[in-house]
């Protein structure tokens, strides 16, 4: 089948960039979207042109590196799917598509379709951890976890940090990502000791990275390849308000005992 791609080409973070049109005359419907780009790049390199830079790693939908805006939708038209898991059979012969990188102040474009998502890493560093003793692993069932909690935590933990939520949000908000990371620990017993501090640190870090705010419109959950619901964002809001409300200054009583 014939596919026409209008791809965002940008040399480096500071140069302007523009759409460039490529006609691919014989794309197999069995190819994944990224394999189609591989074919295009082979072709470009053979002609001595600069290949299109795009990020990819696992190609099995679990690493989160392959985000592209395909015709204005993050990860393309198939819901609950990363670009690497999107196959060309979902397109029609003669389709003309626009490919763009994620666009957000916090995600500067490095080159072509690849952005720098390290702002996400800094949000995780701010609070996406629990404190445990190292050593031999505890028994899996040593701490009872109610099944609904385990399932909700697992659903949130499915977040692969791809950034589609930020890309699709008209406000470039990272609320769904941050909420997923806050909740997957906050819903489990092991996450309780740091729960109030975690949500405050991670929300403040999300704000400091200049992501936008949530307007509850739901574009993020529509494009999330792991189908994480915005119920998760409500949980983050509740935890944040509760943590601010119940914050107390450090106790000065009984210091130096023993």
């Amino acid at each position, binding site marked *: 089948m014939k596919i026409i791609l209008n791809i965002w080409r940008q040399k480096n973070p500071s140069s302007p960039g523009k759409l460039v049109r490529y006609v691919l005359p014989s794309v197999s419907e069995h190819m994944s979207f990224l394999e189609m780009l591989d074919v295009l790049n082979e072709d470009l390199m053979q002609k001595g042109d600069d290949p299109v830079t795009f990020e990819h790693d696992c190609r099995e939908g679990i690493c989160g590196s392959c985000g592209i805006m395909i015709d204005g939708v993050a990860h393309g038209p198939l819901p609950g799917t990363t670009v690497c898991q999107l196959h060309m059979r979902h397109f029609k012969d003669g389709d003309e598509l626009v490919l763009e990188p994620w666009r957000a*102040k916090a995600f500067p474009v490095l080159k072509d379709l690849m952005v720098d998502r390290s702002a996400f890493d800094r949000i995780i560093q701010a609070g996406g951890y629990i404190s445990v003793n190292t050593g031999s692993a505890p028994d899996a069932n040593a701490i009872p976890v109610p099944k609904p909690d385990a399932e909700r935590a697992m659903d949130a933990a499915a977040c692969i940090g791809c950034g589609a939520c930020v890309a699709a949000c008209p406000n470039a*908000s990272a609320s769904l990502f941050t909420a997923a990371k806050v909740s997957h620990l906050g819903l489990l017993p092991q996450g309780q000791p740091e729960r109030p501090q975690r949500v405050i640190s991670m929300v403040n870090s999300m704000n400091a990275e200049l992501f*936008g705010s949530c307007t509850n419109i739901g574009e993020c959950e529509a494009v999330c390849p792991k189908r994480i619901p915005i119920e998760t964002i409500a*949980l983050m809001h*509740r935890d944040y*308000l509760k943590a601010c409300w119940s914050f107390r200054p450090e106790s000065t009583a009984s210091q130096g005992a023993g």
Partner: protein
Amino acid sequence: MRVARLYDSTVGKKAVMAATGVLLFGFVITHLLGNLQFYLGPEALNAYGRNLRHLGALLWAARLGLLAAVLLHISAAVQLWRLNKQARPSHYEKLTAAGSSYASRTMMWSGPILALFIGYHLYHLTLGAHLLHDADGFPLVYQNVVAGFSDPLASGLYIVAMSFLGMHLMHGIWSMFQSIGWNHPKYTPLIKRIAVLTAALIVAGNISIPVAVLLFHQ
């Protein structure tokens, strides 16, 4: 201090939008119930207006409270909107909505239009020098409403403004719950349906009055 720190965050600003949104929503409902007394005739509506004025200090407390709510609601909205613009400095060549409603994407249109309408409405039916009063200085609400809505242009403006109010509330009513952290797979779909229904009733109830004046009071 702690409140100021909370307000510094986007989550805190949204909580303020939700809290002030509840107050404004409560006002809109109360106002509708007051307006519908139009159908009880001139005596009933004018007596309602007089009784409101008799509340005195309480009325002023409510007015100042609403003014504060509107100002807080608008300033949080504008501050968040500016943050959101900064967060997406370069635009997509193509962006397709995949899961949001039209009403939810246009809150920053319907909201400011409502603010303009509130100003016009206060002039048109509360404060303007053209309004009729009885011998004791109380407004003749019924006569003012009939005179005001006999102008098709004014009636048209109200009808358009109420449609924007309906859009704002269609998203706003359920959004309040989400902003303060109440979302539940069992109740949220129900709340969304109630939001649309309530918004439709508010719009229909308010619009019916200018329509009734235009049709039956010429």
